[in-house]
């Protein structure tokens, strides 16, 4: 039940994109069409889970015992960047189809705040290993949900007579604001 609460909390109630402003670059950059955004959502979730696991191990077995917690940021970012680069190369080599589907987003993910922040939050809140993974999955799916909603709204607005200066990223922000406003309905529900 505790895991479920954490999971649901991360997906809707405390959606990282809409309440913590994480992952906005991709959120706005890759939400122009639905299929790309869905691919991105999956990619982020996958990377986040894997890097969370690795990061948790490094933190709890190396950094914490030696009192090096202030170096977490530097180590994690290197870890994720290298890991993602490796992942990208592997996919490119062995599954060009998969690479074309969402491999191209991987490089974007390498330096993305949501991917870095989840491991950071996990260790800062001293979550256990499994708990960290659940948090990562939930946050990733929350991100996927937000970006898919965003993309579907933007696809619809592509056909609308949006004022010129607001076209593109401007209107995307306004939609995001309204999504955030709507998601406030979940507040207080869990946690």
């Amino acid at each position, binding site marked *: 039940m505790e895991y479920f609460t954490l999971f649901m909390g991360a997906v809707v109630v405390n959606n990282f994109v*809409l*309440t*913590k*402003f*994480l*992952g*906005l*670059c991709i959120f*706005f*950059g890759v939400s122009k069409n639905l299929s790309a955004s869905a691919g991105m959502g999956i990619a982020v979730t996958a990377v986040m889970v894997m890097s969370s696991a690795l990061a948790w191990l490094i933190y709890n077995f190396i950094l914490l015992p030696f009192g090096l917690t*202030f*170096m*977490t*940021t*530097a180590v994690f*970012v*290197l870890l994720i*960047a*290298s890991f993602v*680069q490796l992942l990208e190369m592997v996919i490119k080599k062995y599954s060009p189809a998969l690479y074309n589907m969402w491999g191209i987003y991987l490089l974007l993910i*390498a*330096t*993305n*705040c949501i*991917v*870095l*922040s989840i491991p*950071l*939050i996990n260790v*800062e809140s001293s979550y256990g290993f499994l708990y960290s993974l659940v948090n990562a999955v939930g946050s990733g799916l929350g991100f996927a949900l937000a970006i898919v909603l965003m993309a579907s709204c933007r696809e619809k607005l592509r056909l609308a007579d949006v*004022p010129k*200066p*607001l076209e593109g*990223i*401007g*209107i*995307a*922000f*306004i939609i*995001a*604001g*309204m999504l*955030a*406003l709507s998601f*406030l309905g979940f507040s207080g529900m869990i946690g």
Partner: protein
Amino acid sequence: MNSLWSEFKKGIIAENPIFVLALSLCPALAVTSSATTSLTMGLSVMFVITMNNCVVSLIRNVVNPKVRVPVYITSIATIVTVVQLALQAYAPALYDALGIYLALIVVFAIILARAESFASKHTLIPSFFDGLGMGVGFCVALVIIGVLRELFGAGSIFGVKLLGDWYNAPLIMILPAGGFMLIGYLIGGWKMLVQHMEKKEAERSEA
């Protein structure tokens, strides 16, 4: 000199990292509910981006292209960690206010982007100005957002109460939703400003 000035200037207006390039948006929202935190964040980023540009332009010739990105990230991470440590020691209140977002400077796309697209191709001096310009642009954008959000959302700027008690502040401005919408409109406004300036420029060059 002129070209240095233009390297510097483009980062502030025409290629403003937040309003035009739409990079590194997370801090633009997360820490801008007050002007003070916005400024701190802006200055931190300015420092990091300028430093990193310098470092990258210095080491660009000895970096192996295969590990270019990790090396640049290491450089950024080092600088950020230094900033983190310094703030923690000398301004703990701000350190707490910025929270996790300070650590996240590491992954701000704008920093890596400048390193990749500018500093890795230019010498120290232009890189410095490019970084500084981008940093200032970033900082300016953040402060604009911070000031507006604080003014409307709390009636004060930099913690100084400007609007009297009569002002019943709408909380939406300091909440995510209002922040998103405000930035949306600022981006629109900025676009109009840039277009207006370009038009002026074109007219001048024609005349």
